[in-house]
């Protein structure tokens, strides 16, 4: 069983090779992608019972450099991300096949292979047991995403790719320094609930270290002001955007952020160093500013990009607040946001495939022609805005509770305000879609089934997650487990320190 | 005291030759002159080593007829001489190769002046 995490990582790497081998047989190639996705999900899912019982599944560490082992370990927190990435990979693969075929894209082999490598590294990041492993997969992810960003090979794509590389590679170097530094402070640098750096160096050093980490992680997590690449990368095909936002890249960033805060430093240490407030402030500001920027964007995918910037800062905010409920909310939001945002991107993609329309103003009346797509979009948007009964509500509710727990009432206000802004920038899309006046005669013309089925599924899941947050994949329970390992719940603390 | 002064003067002689060579290589524009400067530089090294091998009141390192038990004090140190024989050979070889290169350059570019060469290379 201990081979599980490793197998999960390797499946898609092998698939990448197979995809390359079958480059001249599109059907076979895509069958490989799908098969790999299903197998990977099965492997990850098979780890779930052990983790739910409070155990961990570890692979044999492979030492690369003294004190630097390649070490995989599936814990509750990692499982959240791994389950999310592997389940979404199946849906994204189905969607990609439909999208790429109907769009007539070239370089499809490179696309599927890179995609597989990206998912591999996302799982690697999820299961990384120490900073070294985390860093290695993080960098592989950086490189593997690049071919996807520049997939269209035109000027704009290349410029976007450059911008992407500039941000992520520079950040990668900052992360490298931080990783090396922490490895020299605490040999092994193995993630531990509650952190391992406490007391290993002066507070000044630790502060500098934290800043380096945040720069390193923040670029991928698109924390303002390091978010510049994300809107530029929207030139990529839509499934890639879905990957960037929901499955791997940005998610890996915020995932890393929680890892760093919770498992490297520990929430208490962050608070002692006085960094929690700064991080929370940055996250809060990002939430609001990005929402406002989203309001001003007329390009559909870019609006979604800013929405991501804003939404993912919820997670950072939760980590920064560091109270139990805040962490639960943050971790659950990783999954919740994944399903909701991918719905929106899938919708944007199928609209583009069908009509080649990218601007919101052009969407007039399309909702009547593509009811499934727009219906799903509406559901996703409501979820992101935090409507009760939707997945987004669960995370927001917990975040709000957490903010109160941590005595930062102001962030409750931020959350509410951001919810309103979410309505404000999503509502016009829905409205234009369903009620905008269109000159064209009305007829039902949904995109192909490969496109609308995945998005319908994700939309349904995001409702289900809102009503039964623990359904199927047990995201909610995992989130609780992970959060409780980071912060002992308050009553327990009282009981422990009772004398 | 006199011996020490003499010694320093000798070392300075070698050092001066070395510097003349270095200066020539760095500052002279003509490639043949650079080559000659390079030879001076090598001679400086040779002189330096030979100075190291010298002993007062000693003879060249060839055992005199009838000297059954040669004593180190009576003969100068043969090792630097041997080493410098090698250095001379190296110097000759390097010069030969350098001349070959110069001939090649002259055949192709018709000049051996560095600034003109740089012009022609552009």
């Amino acid at each position, binding site marked *: 069983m201990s081979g599980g995490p490793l197998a999960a990582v390797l499946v898609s790497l092998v698939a990448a090779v197979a995809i390359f081998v079958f480059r001249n047989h599109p059907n076979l190639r895509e069958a490989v992608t799908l098969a790999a996705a299903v197998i990977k999900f099965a492997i990850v899912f098979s780890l779930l019972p052990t983790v739910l019982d409070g155990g961990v599944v570890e692979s044999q560490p492979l030492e690369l450099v003294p004190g630097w082992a390649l070490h995989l370990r599936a814990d509750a927190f990692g499982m959240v991300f791994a389950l999310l990435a592997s389940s979404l990979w199946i849906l994204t693969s189905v969607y990609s096949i439909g999208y790429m075929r109907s769009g007539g894209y070239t370089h499809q082999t490179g696309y599927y292979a890179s995609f597989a490598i990206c998912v591999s590294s996302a799982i690697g990041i999820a299961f990384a047991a120490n900073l070294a492993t985390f860093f290695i997969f993080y960098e592989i992810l950086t490189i593997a995403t690049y071919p996807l960003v520049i997939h269209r090979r035109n000027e704009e794509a290349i410029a976007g790719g450059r911008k992407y590389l500039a941000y992520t590679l520079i950040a990668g170097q900052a992360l490298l320094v931080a990783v090396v530094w922490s490895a020299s402070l605490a040999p092994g640098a193995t993630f531990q609930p509650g952190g391992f750096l406490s007391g290993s160096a002066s507070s000044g050093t630790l502060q500098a270290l934290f800043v380096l980490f945040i720069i390193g992680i923040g670029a991928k997590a698109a924390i303002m002001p390091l978010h510049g690449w994300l809107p530029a990368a929207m030139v990529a095909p839509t499934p890639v955007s879905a990957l960037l936002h929901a499955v791997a890249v940005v998610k890996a960033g915020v995932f890393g952020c929680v890892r760093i805060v919770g498992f490297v430093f520990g929430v208490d240490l962050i608070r002692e160093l006085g960094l929690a407030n700064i991080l929370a402030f940055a996250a809060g500001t990002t939430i609001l500013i990005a929402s406002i920027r989203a309001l001003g964007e007329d390009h559909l995918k870019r609006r979604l990009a800013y929405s991501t910037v804003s939404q993912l800062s919820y997670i950072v905010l939760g980590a920064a607040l560091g109270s139990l409920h805040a962490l639960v909310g943050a971790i659950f939001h990783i999954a919740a946001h994944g399903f909701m945002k991918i719905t929106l991107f899938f919708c944007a993609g199928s609209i583009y495939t069908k009509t080649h329309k990218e601007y919101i103003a052009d969407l007039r009346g399309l909702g009547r022609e593509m009811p499934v797509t727009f219906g799903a979009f509406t559901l996703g948007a409501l979820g992101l805005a935090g409507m009760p009964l939707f997945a987004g509500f669960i995370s927001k509710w917990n975040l709000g509770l957490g903010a109160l727990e941590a005595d930062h009432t102001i962030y409750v206000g931020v959350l509410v305000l951001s919810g309103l802004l979410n309505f404000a920038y999503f509502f016009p899309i829905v409205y234009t879609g369903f009620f905008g006046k269109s000159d064209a005669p009305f007829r039902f013309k949904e995109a192909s089934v490969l496109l609308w089925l995945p998005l319908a599924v994700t939309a349904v899941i995001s409702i289900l997650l809102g009503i039964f947050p623990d359904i199927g994949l047990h995201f909610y329970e995992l989130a609780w487990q992970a959060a409780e390992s980071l912060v002992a719940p308050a009553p327990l603390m009282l009981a422990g320190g009772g004398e | 005291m006199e*011996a020490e002064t003499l010694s320093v003067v000798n*070392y300075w002689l070698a*050092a001066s030759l070395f*510097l003349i060579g*270095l200066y020539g290589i760095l500052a002279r524009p003509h490639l043949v002159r650079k080559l000659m400067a390079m030879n001076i530089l090598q001679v400086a090294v040779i002189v330096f080593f030979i100075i190291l091998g010298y002993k007062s009141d000693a003879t060249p390192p060839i055992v005199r007829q009838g000297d059954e038990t040669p004593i*180190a004090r009576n003969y100068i140190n043969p*090792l630097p*001489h*041997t080493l410098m024989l090698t250095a001379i050979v190296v110097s000759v070889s390097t010069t030969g190769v350098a001349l070959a290169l110069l001939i090649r350059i002259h055949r192709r570019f018709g000049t051996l002046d560095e600034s003109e060469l740089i012009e022609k290379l552009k």
Partner: protein
Amino acid sequence: MQQLLQRIAWLPFVAAAAILFYAARDLPTMADPNAPASTHVSPRYIESALEETGASNMVTAVLADYRAYDTLGETVVILTAGLACLLVLGAFTPARSGPTEKEAMPYEFGSDIVDATSRLLIPFIILFALYVVVHGHTSPGGGFQGGAICAAAIILVRLVRGRAPGLKLLPTYTVAIGSIGVLVYTGTGLVSLFFEKNFLDYSGLPLPFHGGHLREMGSLSVETGVFITVTAVMVLIFDVLTMGSEE
């Protein structure tokens, strides 16, 4: 960039000057018989060379025996230089239409007096060269010196009479002869390797001598190799520098 470099060229110069003149004071006094260079390592060469290597010329003893490996390297340097000149100038006389003698040797002095004198001198020069090689063990001399003198004789022939009459060797063959010289050297060393001694340990040579005498024979053998190489390569370099190129 180039100008900037030339303008600051004096910087390393001044630095080197300062260092060199500064260090001179702290070096051991010249001619001091108690200096480290005169008291460590070298006394053995002086006191035991005759007994151990059979050479009364200690320089030869060190050159051809104690540090014979250095000398092997040195001989290889010469050969390398010859090959290098050959490759750089590409002086491979094509088999079909070689340059005529006049073209090949533009520096010929055609005077009868020079011719007659050189005819008289050259046998003696070559004889002297051989003497210098053979007597390198007891007096100043050795393979390098002898080789240089012998090469001078051949080059004199070339200068006076062109390449045609005497020792008309193409560079390809002079290179081969040079290689043979080094092969004689390494061969001598390899023979001792086969007799379970270290490379260049002449005491392993299968010759009817003992002790110093045996080693002396070994040194003589490698000196012969050096002589061959030096002669050949000197002639080769001269030829290559004065011949037209293949291109």
